[in-house]
């Protein structure tokens, strides 16, 4: 009988422990002393680690800027490399504080995964990579072709839509890991490899024996606004993640750079710059951060334009044009709400 009582006691103890709720993200980050950031397992220009384990890329820079704004130190980021299939679960379960992993912002994801998209770090579109020697000039001429694709992305559905609309009867071969998908493409199993155009440039540059042997077809078949996301239910953290991105974009608009940010903060009399650098209004206080939160972020990674140029821009191996990702007043789509 004694053992029965112990058994019931154990069962009761199980029942008594209520469901776990995520605490205030900012408090837990300050307590842990680091921001847990979900990144890609390896996509040149966006997030990849070198042989010493140093992470770089535009998605990684966002993590660094966030850590700098929140903790004052860009190195206090815990990078969690995630596959496409793992990423949302990692964010939902609280394993990471922010997901910065070239993730497309869609209605389904926004409305049903318990996550909030912060903004757009890169306006992209899905394209096709084909060997030059196949002489394919347009995606519309690839009737019946086999296409390699990574699973767990919006790309599978986009390709299906495009294939239906143009009666192409494309056959997908779906791989869990991007390395397997590109490996199969480069071995000649598939006539084309498809993902976001930026990803194609990254893959062509990093994995092709001779990048000139492969060409990205002109058609972009979808809109892919890529951006970071945070868990739902913590509006304060959502605001911090959002405004760090907006701040980086607005810093570029007003010419605040990694090199001149200290000087700007000390000397500028422009009211907008004084607000961004925290010299006049204390916007940091409203977010629960230090007064000079944006100065720290820009000092860590530069403004949005510098992040772009350093990681994916025309001077890098990826050689991606600024295009849609230029500032709104220079013909692009990057338009940050004002910091005030």
């Amino acid at each position, binding site marked *: 009988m004694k053992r*029965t009582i112990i*058994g019931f006691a154990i*069962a009761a103890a*199980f*029942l008594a422990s209520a*469901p*776990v*709720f*995520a605490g205030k993200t900012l408090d837990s980050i300050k307590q842990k002393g680091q921001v847990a950031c979900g990144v890609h397992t390896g996509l040149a220009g966006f997030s990849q680690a070198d042989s010493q384990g140093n992470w770089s890329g535009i998605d990684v820079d966002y993590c660094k800027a966030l850590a700098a704004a929140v903790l004052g130190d860009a190195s206090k980021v815990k990078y969690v490399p995630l596959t*496409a*299939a793992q990423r*949302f*679960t990692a964010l*939902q379960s609280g394993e990471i504080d922010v997901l910065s992993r070239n993730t497309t912002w869609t209605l*389904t*994801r926004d*409305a*049903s*995964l*318990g996550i909030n998209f912060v903004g757009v770090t890169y306006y992209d579109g899905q394209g096709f990579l084909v060997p030059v020697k196949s002489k394919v000039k347009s995606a519309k001429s*690839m*009737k*019946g*072709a*086999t296409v*390699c694709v990574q*699973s*767990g*992305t919006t790309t*599978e*559905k986009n*390709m*299906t*839509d495009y*294939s*239906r609309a143009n009666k192409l009867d*494309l*056959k*997908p*071969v*779906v*791989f*869990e*890991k991007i390395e*397997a*998908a590109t490996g*199969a493409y480069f*071995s*000649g*199993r598939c*006539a084309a490899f498809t993902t976001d155009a930026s990803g194609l440039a990254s893959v062509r540059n990093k994995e092709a024996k001779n990048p000139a042997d492969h060409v990205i077809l002109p058609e972009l078949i979808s809109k892919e606004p890529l951006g970071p996301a945070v*868990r*739902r*239910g913590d509006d304060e953290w959502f605001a911090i993640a959002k405004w760090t991105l907006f701040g980086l974009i607005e810093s570029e608009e007003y010419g605040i750079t990694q090199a001149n940010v200290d000087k700007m903060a000390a000397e500028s009399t422009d009211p907008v710059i004084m607000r961004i650098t925290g010299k006049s209004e204390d916007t940091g206080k409203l977010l629960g951060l230090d007064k000079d939160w944006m100065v720290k972020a820009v000092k860590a990674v530069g403004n949005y334009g510098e992040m772009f140029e350093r990681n994916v821009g025309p001077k890098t191996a990826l050689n991606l044009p600024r295009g849609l990702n230029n500032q709104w007043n220079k013909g692009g789509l990057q338009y940050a709400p004002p910091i005030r």
Partner: protein
Amino acid sequence: MRRRSASRSWSWRSQAFRGLVWQVVAVLLVGLAAWYLGHNTLENMRARGIKSGFDFLFGPAGFDIGESLVKYDALDPVWKAFLVGLLNTLRVAIVGIVLATLLGVALGIGRFSKNALLRGLCYAYTETFRNIPILLQLLFWYLVFTEILPPVNEPVTLGTTFFLSKGGFSFPWWIDGVWSVPTPGAFSMDGGATATPEFMAVLLGLVFYTAAFIGEVVRAGIAAVPKGQVEAASSLGLPRGLQVRKVILPQAMRVIIPPLTNQYLNLTKNSSLAVAIGYPDVVSIATTTLNNTGRAVECISIIMLVYLTTSLSTAALMNWYNKRMAIRER
């Protein structure tokens, strides 16, 4: 049992009553644990704004699948996509089990051959294939197909109607009431039927790996037949082939079947590794669906249910066969 407890006077302290109490307690605890896990998961998902439920199965899938045994269109409901995946899993599992059994039995018998070269080859095969991880073998076969074979628009022709290329193995097939013969097109083989490199790599990987284990099971079964049985068969003048078929194997089967069932279950479960090389099995479909809908718990449950069901049916079938083969005391 019943008669004995009925004859005794009922008591709080009786063995039967205490046994019953423990069983009820055990069932209650298991039930409570399951309820707690399920309830807690649902509560947490609700608190975090994650949608749940199986309603997504009836929405349109929205993605194409590379190979399918039934007619499938991207606008078909999600459950149909799962069905396609399930059939792909079963296809590779059933064909795999048949081929692995044939190869395994040959290997097992080969280990008793009087020919030292054959014996050695069977031994070498077993030790090589069962000691290399299955995932590596799958990747190896996939690499063989995709690297070595010629591009799909210039295939190797075997006879005039069989073609082998990076696009797979194409052969004539009965389509809409006529024999359709494949012809090479620009990007794919037109007409006929094609076994894709993904399917062939998964199949070969599973067959060669599992056959090594089945070979050992068969060898153990044959070794368990008493030597006197063989001597008796020889003294009756039975030729070697008949001895194996009529005397050794029927007795060995009784030892072989239970561990053989394990190997069949392993083969089916190992087929889930196919996702690594792009074969659209049920796991691959579930991964895609999971990412389109975000229903992680539901999709994983479906995968578990599929493997549980196939494994239990395989086990049930093999147990029935085992009973049939068991020694009947006369």
